[in-house]
């Protein structure tokens, strides 16, 4: 009962506009104080803040954010788009396909979907407009392609899920690869179908000579190399995810130095931006953990497990119900907030039903990814709006429909074939 009231108060406070970190912290603290007293609740908040900020596992967050920012700054994101374009740009809908592929490439070095969407909309949208692509298709491709950011490793969301549930972050990363590739393929399929039905939506781009293509592709081997080093290193056991993040950031730093795009001033900007983003993320995490302590002490997780057991749905029924719940919640909720609020409640349930923590983690990422592009609140769509201001939100929402269908298809495939997630991490432990 207390916990339900807590959720009610939380929604009210967040809708009012209080920042996530402070809303979560305030309600969590108040609820905890009502059950234990103000002093223990205050001490709990301080201890959570200290423990979260000094967590070794979470240090991958700032380092991977830094890597993404350095890669972006060194102009490699532009090169990625040029290379993808050189390869597929001359097909019908080719620029949109290139956008998807470049998003996938950028995701391989960026841990965040918002960063992927922001970066790629700046680069890809103007060029698609220039070639007469419909706004619907081009913005849909960027919005959807951006969601790959948290699925293709490295991924901020996987780190947070891993540290909350003590699931191996390395395995989660490796497990994200196949669903990520599947996502790219299905999105490409969506572009083909859209342009097949309406060829005017995505006219073919100019065909480059073989030599030009080679040159464009040769420019991005650095990005692919960086991805191969960090994910390959984790996969082969050369280093842990935290170490991979440090290596990756150092690699991106050296690449930026080599490309001579990094002045001391620019480096300072990149560092400033990274520490601010990290502080924002960590603040939200602290707030969420304070809130989840209140939920815990109120006994909600065991109540939910008991309630769902009583329904007698069986594992598959429960899983379908959870997915539906996430898809609905995702319409209005931010992906990070969703994970933070629900994992402490549902994770014990899912594990008790015999599901693999890695599998559930990736399924969760795939599901909350969709929330980034579903109305009324889809963060990727807002990002595109802030960059291309004359694009009506309605157009973007119509544009993402084919991609949402692709997402749902992927979800069904993952449910039907768990090996899509579990095969690669399974190879790791042997």
């Amino acid at each position: 009962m207390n916990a339900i009231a807590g959720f009610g108060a939380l929604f009210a406070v967040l809708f009012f506009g209080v920042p996530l970190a402070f809303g979560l912290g305030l309600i969590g603290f108040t609820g905890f104080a009502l059950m234990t007293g103000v002093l223990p609740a205050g001490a709990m908040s301080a201890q959570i803040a200290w423990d979260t900020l000094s967590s070794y596992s979470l240090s991958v967050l700032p380092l991977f954010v830094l890597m993404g920012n350095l890669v972006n700054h060194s102009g490699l994101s532009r090169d990625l788009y040029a290379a993808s374009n050189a390869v597929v740009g001359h097909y019908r809908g080719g620029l949109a396909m290139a956008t998807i592929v470049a998003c996938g490439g950028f995701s391989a070095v960026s841990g965040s979907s918002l960063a992927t969407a922001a970066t790629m909309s700046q680069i890809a949208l103007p060029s698609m407009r220039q070639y007469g692509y419909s706004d619907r298709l081009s913005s849909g491709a960027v919005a959807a392609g951006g969601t790959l950011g948290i699925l293709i490793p490295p991924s901020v969301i996987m780190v947070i899920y891993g540290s909350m549930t003590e699931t191996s972050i390395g395995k989660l990363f490796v497990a994200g690869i196949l669903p990520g590739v599947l996502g790219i393929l299905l999105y490409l399929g969506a572009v083909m179908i859209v342009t097949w039905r309406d060829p005017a939506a995505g006219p073919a781009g100019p065909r480059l000579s073989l030599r030009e293509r080679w040159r464009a592709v040769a420019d991005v081997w650095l990005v692919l190399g960086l991805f191969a080093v960090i994910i390959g290193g984790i996969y082969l056991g050369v280093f842990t995810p935290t170490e991979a993040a440090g290596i990756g950031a150092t690699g991106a730093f050296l690449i930026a130095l080599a490309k001579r795009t990094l002045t001391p001033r620019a480096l300072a900007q990149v560092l400033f931006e990274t520490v601010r983003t990290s502080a924002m993320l960590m603040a939200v995490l602290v707030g969420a953990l304070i809130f989840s302590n209140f939920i815990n002490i109120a006994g909600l997780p065991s109540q939910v497990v008991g309630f769902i057991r009583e329904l007698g749905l069986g594992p598959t029924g429960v899983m379908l119900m959870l997915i539906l719940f996430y898809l609905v919640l995702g319409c209005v909720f931010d992906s990070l907030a969703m994970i933070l609020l629900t994992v402490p409640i549902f994770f014990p349930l899912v594990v008790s039903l015999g599901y693999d923590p890695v599998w559930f983690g990736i399924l969760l990422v795939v599901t909350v990814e969709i929330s980034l592009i579903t109305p009324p609140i889809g963060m990727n769509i807002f990002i595109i709006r802030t960059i291309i201001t004359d694009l009506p939100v309605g157009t973007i929402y119509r544009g993402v429909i084919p991609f949402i269908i692709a997402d749902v298809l992927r979800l069904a495939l993952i449910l039907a074939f768990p090996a899509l997630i579990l095969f690669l991490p399974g190879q790791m432990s042997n």
Partner: protein
Amino acid sequence: MVFLSAAALLLFLMMVMTFVDVTGRYLLNQPLGFAFEMTQIMMAAMVFCALPSVTLRDEHVTAGLFDTLFRGRLRVARDALIAGVVAFGCGFLAWRLSFLAERFMTFGDRTSALRFPVGIVAWLGVACLGAAAVAGVVLLLGVVRERNAR
């Protein structure tokens, strides 16, 4: 700005330290030995140091659902209230963290390899959260001033 620069420097050092640690482990069979604990310490210090700037720039993540509902005077009242909540939250946490910091000092908590006193970083956190609270107040005054200017 001092805090933010310190945070940036810490991040850069963290990156270099991790790189040196891993390469040392493979090339010289000799990792730094303190990378694990210093990553923890530096990360805490870095995030603490970045908080005042995030708060001052009003960059904390919001759900921002019904922003358009609040207009005019209502909007000012809301923004002021939120800035107040942020300032209070940071100030309160600074106060409570000071007890933990004090305990780390009196109990003598140290990192295991370098014997670095953990309490110092917790006290740094108290200072940063205090600065973030001040930043929240500055934000609040800014909202009110803007209103009066109109």
